[in-house]
């Protein structure tokens, strides 16, 4: 752990100068280590990509450079984004800037810690099932998961393609909005991206905005102190002129199962390319190929990654595909339909980002309890809708995040509500 990085927020420090002048001129930024940076090692927090230096920049990185930002490091993360504590990093866990005995959240924990500690004003994270919003909530900063298709994934090293987005993390909603406007330009290289640039200056007017409060977001497993902190935040929005209505999302029951089945299935395929031929440890070339690559993957991947590859492989195999993958897609369609139904009535949905405050290091050693902590963030990924986490208070000095979700491509409205809230509490 480098002395100038006591939180272990960075895997690689670098100095990538800007390529132009623009909205980010004079600003420094950190980039999560699963986003490709030309000439700078990009490991995804994994041993298997140690020493991998991409020959090209991710689209989002091209945009940062063109708009004048200086990239000063690649941030720590759960290996390939699989986790919500950053403890699954092959480079040691990052620590929470508020309480270093706790995790910063994950998987974009390094970005959350670096911004939370004030090392840098801005960072890029990625969010597959909450990986931007969770560390934002735990570190007391703002993080936006954009609408699926709003930011090009070109150069983002895939974990679960159909769920993940690159998004901005910063201390204020204004900075998040600025960074979002830089990275959301259209990129034809991502076939799932659409030409819907975010060109927006936040407004604090939430008058007439209908906000739905989802019952299930305050259900079993949600710390009551977190719940009441978030409730009072929602009341502040009501005071600002928003209309608060109660609503229900029954599909939440199957959301976690749908999410984990989908992301593990996709991951089992995405990670197949790390076979030891072009990346990873020097394998013993006297071995036969199928022995060599098995050994390579056994040694190069961490335990959680191997678990998810195996479960995903199982979910896609003949005889089980219909029972798992196909069913997960049906459950996912139900989540999507629930959101559509709710958004025909309300403009935004509100609830806590995480069911608890930041865990202690080592607290979530049981994978299932770790998975359960994602329950409030995965619905937005399953549906592809935008979601933001904005600090809304503390429980025992630990930050709590308010999560606001909006309709597809209404990231602006989500940002505005967070902006309005931020103005009244600060």
């Amino acid at each position, binding site marked *: 752990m480098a002395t100038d990085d006591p939180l272990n927020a960075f895997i690689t420090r670098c100095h990538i100068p800007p390529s132009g002048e623009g909205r980010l001129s004079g600003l420094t930024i950190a980039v999560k280590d699963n986003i490709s940076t030309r000439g700078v090692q990009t490991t995804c927090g994994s041993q298997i990509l140690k020493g991998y230096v991409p020959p*090209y920049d*991710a689209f989002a990185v091209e945009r940062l450079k063109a708009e004048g930002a200086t990239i000063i490091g690649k941030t720590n993360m759960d290996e390939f984004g699989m986790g919500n504590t950053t403890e699954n990093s092959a480079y040691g866990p990052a620590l929470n800037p508020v309480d270093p005995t706790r995790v910063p959240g994950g998987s974009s924990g390094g970005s959350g810690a670096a911004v939370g500690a004030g090392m840098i004003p801005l960072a890029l994270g990625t969010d597959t099932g909450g990986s931007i919003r969770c560390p934002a909530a735990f570190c007391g900063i703002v993080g936006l998961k954009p609408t699926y298709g709003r930011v090009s994934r*070109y150069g983002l090293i895939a974990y679960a393609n159909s769920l993940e987005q690159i998004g901005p993390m910063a201390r204020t909603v204004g900075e998040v909005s600025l960074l979002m406007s830089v990275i959301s330009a259209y990129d034809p290289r991502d076939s799932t991206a659409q030409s819907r640039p975010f060109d927006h200056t936040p407004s604090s007017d939430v008058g007439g905005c209908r906000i739905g409060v989802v019952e299930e977001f305050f259900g079993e497993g949600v710390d009551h102190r977190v719940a009441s902190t978030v409730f009072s935040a929602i009341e502040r929005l009501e005071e600002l002129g928003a209309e608060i209505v109660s609503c229900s999302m029954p599909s939440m029951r199957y959301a976690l199962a749908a999410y984990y089945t989908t992301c593990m*299935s996709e991951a089992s395929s995405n990670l197949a*390319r790390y076979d030891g031929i072009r990346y990873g440890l020097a394998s013993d070339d006297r071995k036969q190929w199928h022995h060599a690559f098995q050994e390579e993957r056994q040694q190069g991947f961490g335990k959680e990654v191997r678990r998810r590859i195996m479960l995903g492989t199982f979910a896609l*195999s003949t005889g089980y595909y219909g029972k798992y993958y196909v069913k997960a897609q049906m459950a996912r369609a139900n989540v999507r339909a629930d959101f559509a139904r709710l958004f025909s009535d309300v403009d935004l949905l509100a609830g806590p980002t995480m069911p608890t405050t930041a865990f202690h290091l080592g607290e979530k050693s049981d994978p299932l309890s770790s998975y359960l902590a994602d329950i409030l963030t995965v619905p937005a990924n399953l549906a592809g809708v935008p979601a933001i986490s904005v600090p809304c208070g503390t429980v025992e000095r630990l930050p709590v995040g308010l999560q606001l979700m909006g309709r597809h491509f209404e990231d602006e409205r989500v940002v505005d509500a967070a902006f309005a809230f931020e103005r009244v509490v600060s």
Partner: protein
Amino acid sequence: MRDEPAGTVIIGLEIHTQLNTASKLFCGCSTDYRTDGPNTHVCPICMGLPGSLPRMNRRAVEFALRVAKALHCEVLEEAEFARKNYFYPDLPKGFQITMYDRPLGVQGYLDIEGDDGEKRIRITRIHLEEDPGRLVHKGGGDRPKYSLVDYNRSGIPLLEIVTEPDLRSPREARRLINTLRSTLEYLRVFDGDKEGSLRVDANISITGYSRVEIKNISSFKGVEKALTFEITRQRNLIRRGQTIERETRHFLETRGITTSARGKEVEHDYRYFPEPDLRPLRVKDWVEDIDLPELPAARRERFVAEYGISINHARTLTGEFKLADFYEQVAHIGPVLAATWVADILLGELNYRDMSIGSVPVPPFIDLLTLVMERSITDKGAVEVLRVMLDQAAHHEMVDSPSTIVGRLNLGRTSGDEFIPLAREVIDSYQPAVEDYRRGKKGALNFLIGQVMKKVGGKADPRELGKIIESLIAESSPGA
């Protein structure tokens, strides 16, 4: 399987053809890699580098849809790419992007000339996929020391065409492949001259026995060879009372045999699922907007009607798209003469030299036909000239103009007038034959023609000599 008499050979094919787009299926790399060094036509996408994303080449889909339409396939509302997951060193992503339960076309057919007349072969499905890279094994013949990977081929668009088990002999399989090749070339989506542009897997069984899959047939001629070998092998096993194992076999092109792949390949579970990086393709409307060019059968009929040539010539000429084009460029000299020269003479000379029609320059061939048409050269002499032209073309030399070659080889036919004195001499010296001719013996004229021909060293048209001799005899006839 329908009821077939015992012992019937049943064959179905899975044909992979490279589509001749300018760029690869999911990236902008050029497909023109064959003459360049390894790994020179690559980028992050076709190398499968982390973070790269496929971007669909619309031209490749358009090409595939042309084929779907020409093969009378049903095209569904949407087609969808899927991932086929397996580990192999030539597969940079650890999966191949292909199509699975939503292909581009299903339930089509192709009519071929079967063993018992015209026959309809049903097409099960066609779909688009990416070609993997290529392994080059190095050091020591059968037991290579190491292997290198060349990703130039990785991402080349491949069209997979699967037939129903409707073929009943290796010859029918060959005819299907040839008809398909011809159709693909007419659709301008395929170049069969390129090495590795066609690969075939064949399923073959003899009714009552297990099915065998032959993989790895990589040439047009190989299909018939591999199947013929396999039928002989299976029949021998049956005769000896041994069992035919249900297995996968590899065709060894150089030795013309198939060998068991047992032990080398594990049964794969490809774990197909929809490719999340690409959107489904809305193909039904797209295929409706496609206008097909003239296909072989239509062109054959047009050739007969428009040029007045025989159905056999028309069939030969239209069997290959480039050959038909070539014919149409030279037909104006004289359609029937041109048909004979292209279909019979030129094609024979090309086969002999293992050359393709593409290497024959059109203008000199037009000049040659003109010389023949004008009777400035004999047929025999013209063939000599053609051979010189083809030898020059084969050696990538400039092809001389036919008249230059005629001059150099002294093949020019001496003009009719020059024969008159010689003909007179012959008439004077062979009066008995002249008398025979006058009495109506046709053979006598041939004798006289032969005598003149001897004197000119064969450089004359016998029919023309006949006319000269006949008129000289008439002039000198007692009654004149």
